[in-house]
């Protein structure tokens, strides 16, 4: 079976700033990879490259067998397979929770409204907020909004889910509910790439942890090894700061 994501010799610059340096990373089907590292290390940029929100300048990036290139239709094909959850939720404030979830199925997949609504309710049920369906995002708590964002991404039935610091904008008491939703999603066998500082989540859910610093992948290791026997000095320093 092909890998879900294959990244080889990927380089990216913001103007003259070399933000991703020679990245090589393969993610297997159903694998859960946590990407961590200090701020400015390029981890968010890396996962944003995977659905083409950021374009890389060099190297090869293949998602579910489709190469992310300038060729017409490729970026759409990739995005159809990849769902994304953002730090700031990015729900559409003028639409209800249900409308947020049915918009893409109805217009991208041309699904009839009734079917899209049934699908949306199924996923809202899965993130445990079906009763909020008719409210507007502004009426929900941060944790609830982020769970809606997860449900919204899932309604497109992606094969890969990207999470860009999904709990960083949340109040502490709401982090748990979002992480639990993500754990449940992991249990379904979804391929997940998660940028997060939640080391507890990384330890229990991740198959591998990628540590990045200064635009490079410094170390890739399974959680046990990563937390107990990190190889690089930079990883040790990062862990000593974050685990305290």
């Amino acid at each position, binding site marked *: 079976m092909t890998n879900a994501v294959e990244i080889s010799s990927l380089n990216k610059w913001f103007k003259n700033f070399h933000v991703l340096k020679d990245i090589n990373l393969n993610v297997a089907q159903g694998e859960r990879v946590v990407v961590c590292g200090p701020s400015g290390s390029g981890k968010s940029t890396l996962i944003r490259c995977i*659905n083409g929100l950021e374009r890389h300048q060099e190297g090869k990036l293949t998602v579910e067998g489709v190469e992310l290139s300038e060729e017409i239709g490729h970026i759409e094909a990739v*995005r159809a397979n990849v*769902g994304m959850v*953002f730090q*700031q939720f990015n729900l*559409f*404030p*003028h639409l209800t929770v249900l409308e947020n979830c049915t918009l*893409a199925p109805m217009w*991208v997949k041309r699904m009839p409204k009734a079917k899209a609504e049934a699908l949306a309710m199924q996923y809202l049920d899965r993130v445990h907020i079906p009763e909020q369906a008719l409210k507007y995002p502004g009426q929900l708590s941060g944790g609830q909004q982020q769970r809606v964002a997860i449900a919204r991404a899932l309604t497109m039935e992606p094969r890969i889910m990207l999470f860009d610091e999904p709990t960083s904008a949340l109040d502490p008491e709401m982090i748990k509910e979002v992480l639990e939703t993500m754990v449940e999603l992991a249990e379904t066998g979804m391929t997940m790439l998660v940028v997060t500082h939640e080391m507890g989540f990384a330890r229990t859910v991740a198959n591998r942890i990628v540590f990045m610093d200064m635009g490079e992948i410094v170390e890739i290791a399974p959680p046990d090894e990563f937390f107990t026997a990190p190889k690089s000095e930079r990883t040790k320093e990062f862990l000593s700061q974050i685990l305290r």
Partner: protein
Amino acid sequence: MTASRLPPRVILPGPIEWLRENLFSSWGNSALTLLALAFLYWTVVPFVQWAFVDAVWVGAGRDACLPYPDGACWPFISARMGQIIYGFYDVAERWRVDFALMGLAFGLLWVTLPGMPAKGSVGAAMVLVYPFVAFVLLAGGFGLEQVPTTRWGGLLMTLVVAITGIVASLPIGILLALGRRSELPVVKGFSVAFIELWRGVPLVTVLFMAANMLPLFVGLSINKLLAALIAVALFSSAYMAEVVRGGLQAIPKGQYEAAAAMGLSYWQSMLFVILPQALRLALPNIVGNFIGLLKDTSLISIIGFFDLLGIVQAGATDPAWATPNTALTGYAFVGAVFWAMCFSMSRYAKHMEGVLGAGERR
């Protein structure tokens, strides 16, 4: 645990206390209050005196008004009402204007009043069908006698120019605003050039060009009113574009990214995600533009059309009504009509802001 309780009672001040607190709280404040009262006394009182108390209400010509040099001459307005509404439109055909205006009022009320059914269909009919029906009604054809546009005037002319401008400028303005933010150099360049060109030229100049120079240069004899309508529409589109762009700029980048990440195309994300939010933010300024446009329609009198203001002005020069107060009465009346139209637009916009803002507490 402390039991929750109601907030302390607010004791409302009596009228005397209210006056003391708000209008006479200090020497400076008292002085300003008296100054404002004096100003009102010297402006509002004489106006009311002129417009109502000393005014002449009935009569058949200047003789009725001449004995009252300190009051408005309202019979002038009632005698000229036909022209004020229809311009020089043939009297026997005025029912066609009535039908067109009633259709407009009916459609507008249907769409704007809360709680009416099938607003979408009625709105679509107003945009897609009504203009053609109204055009045939006003200009003629299909068995109706032709009425040349040179005979249109008054309120009819003002509404034709303003509504065409309003209806055309919003969609064109949206497209120009999107074009100006486009990453395609040709689209962006064209939009910037178009917007800056039209915004850099006064409307008077634009109207002169459309009416006189365009036929001269291009050599084709285009209907003068049509030329003016196109000019007004393009002119206001350029302003509308900048207003809409302001709204677009206020939408966080995350909204674009979320739409793109879900696979929505450019037009889908604009239509369903970005524009509904941007237009709501821009609504006060959009309506501000509409109001400005409505008032600017008076300028078409310089290319020989008699709009609401123009026709009243022309009527005031009629020797049969020559009194010191005729023109003043006309201006007061036109001012009141414009004010009523603009104020209702403004109030409706305020109401819509509330409706569209429902549930949008960020």
